[in-house]
């Protein structure tokens, strides 16, 4: 089926931003939208949006069931995530400076609108640089074991990255990432994590774990996606950014935008914020106040680069079921190169890519894929 019209990714984004648009989708459009939504883990969010807008009952039943099913599994995932965080909160890390909960865990604990229907694969905590390895050591006694044991991977994480090699719980298989910054030490600009830690807020019901300030939650979502090399679930991360901004703007008004921009400038990441906001406007119709538009414009790249990067981000966000698969593939490749380019200075990058291409032991696919890799297991 060649004609996926209109663009399924855009149809999904419209559905999230304006759920009433879902009522106009044909069966063929739903087929493609479900594919893109599944790929980006956005079907649960779509269900909650449709419920809030009161259109869920009027959706085609066969399609709505997928959204509902995704929302059910997200509910289970959120309960498990909360439970894991409670265990951590009452565990051995109480002897350290309280860490921040980042990303999915933070959205769930803060009850933010993008947490509804969202599936988080792992838990992310941010510790002070000088305490992160102590945290790793004490968590060992609670069943959290290190992964990535090769000498290269160890140095890669410990020396160059902003997080330690991921931990995994020996019984439950949950993954836990211990961060000490939100961007790698080798990134194009240096971010001061103290700003995040000092602005932290308590979480109701938790003794130790803390939440980043709203502006930091948004900025972390932005720098995470726009420094990423792999945009497999880029659309979900963009939806997080859009939803968080919409939510906080509704709470605090235009002041929130100003805080956000001020902080982006202070952390030297406004040049990442500009394309992020453009993508949100383009995909979800995020409303940006006039004054913010002007300030953002100062952080935009020069004209030819801006044009290329807009096309690149647009196509890299497309799902696999798309009318332009080849351009999308090129865009993903460019995002991959860009991410690496930003992450490491050229010489280090060359060394890293050389190692990964020729010296690194061949890795199998990740867990889920490994189970699926063999077709005969499914019949």
């Amino acid at each position: 089926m060649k004609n996926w019209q209109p663009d399924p990714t855009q149809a999904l984004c419209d559905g999230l931003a304006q759920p009433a648009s879902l009522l106009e989708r044909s069966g063929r459009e739903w087929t493609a939208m479900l594919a893109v939504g599944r790929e980006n883990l956005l079907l649960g969010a779509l269900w909650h949006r449709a419920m809030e807008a009161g259109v869920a009952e009027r959706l085609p039943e066969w399609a709505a069931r997928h959204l509902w099913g995704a929302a059910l599994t997200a509910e289970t995932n959120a309960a498990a995530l909360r439970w894991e965080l409670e265990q951590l909160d009452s565990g051995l890390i109480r002897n350290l400076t309280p860490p921040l909960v980042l990303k999915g865990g933070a959205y769930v604990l803060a009850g933010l609108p993008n947490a509804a229907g969202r599936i988080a694969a792992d838990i992310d905590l941010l510790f002070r640089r000088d305490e992160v390895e102590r945290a790793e050591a004490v968590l060992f006694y609670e069943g959290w074991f290190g992964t990535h044991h090769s000498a290269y991977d160890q140095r890669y994480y410990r020396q160059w990255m902003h997080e330690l090699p991921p931990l995994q719980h020996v019984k439950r298989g949950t993954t836990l990432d211990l961060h000490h910054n939100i961007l790698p030490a080798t990134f194009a600009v240096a971010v001061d994590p103290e700003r995040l830690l000092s602005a932290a807020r308590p979480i109701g019901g938790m003794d130790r774990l803390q939440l980043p300030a709203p502006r930091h939650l948004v900025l972390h979502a932005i720098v995470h996606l726009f420094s990423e090399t792999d945009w497999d679930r880029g659309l979900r991360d963009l939806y997080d950014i859009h939803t968080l901004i919409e939510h906080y703007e509704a709470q605090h008004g235009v002041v929130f935008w100003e805080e956000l921009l001020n902080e982006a400038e202070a952390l030297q990441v406004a040049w990442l914020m500009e394309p992020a906001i453009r993508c949100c406007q383009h995909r979800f119709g995020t409303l940006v106040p006039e004054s913010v538009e002007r300030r953002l414009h100062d952080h935009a790249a020069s004209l030819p680069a801006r044009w290329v990067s807009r096309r690149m981000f647009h196509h890299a966000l497309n799902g696999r079921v798309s009318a332009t698969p080849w351009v999308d593939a090129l865009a993903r490749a460019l995002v991959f190169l860009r991410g690496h380019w930003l992450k490491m200075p050229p010489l280090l990058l060359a060394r890293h890519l050389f190692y990964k291409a020729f010296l690194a032991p061949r890795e199998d696919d990740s867990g889920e894929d490994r189970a699926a890799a063999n077709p005969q297991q499914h019949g």
Partner: protein
Amino acid sequence: MTSVAELGYADLSGRLAAGCLLVQTGPVRSLLKSRLSSVAEGLWRLYADHRVIEPEDGADFFCEVREPLGLRRFYRPQALFYADRKNIFKPLPRNQAFPMLEWGLNWCIGTQVKHFLLFHAACLEKNGRALIMPAPPESGKSTLCAALACSGWRLLSDEATLVDLASSEVRVLGLSRPVSLKNASIDVIQAIAPDAFLSERCHDTLKGSVAHMRPPRDSVVRANEPATPAWVVFPRYQPQAPAVLTERSEGETFMGLARNSFNYAALGARAFHRTVDIVEQAQGYDFRYSRLEEAIPIFEELAAGSHPSSV
């Protein structure tokens, strides 16, 4: 209401090549694409009675089986399976393209369906009451399932039993897709049910030879009729053993079901409660057997409601 047979082979393979063939199997609709003639032939023979709907009606899954790009196709041809344009499996030899589509559809259901509680179990029905047979591979589940489907039971599913999560009553749904048979089972079924249509054998897969049995027409036509769980039977094929049916405790039945679910953990408390519902209204059994001739009458007695006996 058009069935694959009514569509005609030319229309079927044309739609399949264009990626516009939408086949309904129970509550699941799959949009299929392939230019490989073996895939078209497999669908033609094994899905003859299934309903074909129009792409405009919408599909749960978009699946494609195709050759890889590149020169390899000329000297050692392969087939790849794509779900929603994602390459899911390692490549297989091209002669396994049709079984690969079957396995791929199983993968889609097993990993992507969250709105049903799914058990890796065969499911059959008699008088509105469902027989659920959960079992790991090599337990003789499919053989028993094919034999029962050929002797008066309605086939709901050979591979995945779908339990409704939305309704207040506990009911199971089936897919009425072809039953997958391996190695010696192929001859056994052919002998016990000479009228059943079996596809040509596909040799040298990792599981040996595989063939698929076309589901009985009545089962396909009634695929959307739900059934109420009445028996949960854990079959185990054991060479030379006499057929013995023994009751299983509720706790053991529960654990056996949970262990054989594809999405129990993902659905959490809801899955727990629905599994409890099943165990509360269905009697659990262990069933050891070697000969289908002994096995089938035992299931007849079970369906008739007489006290289950062993032979």
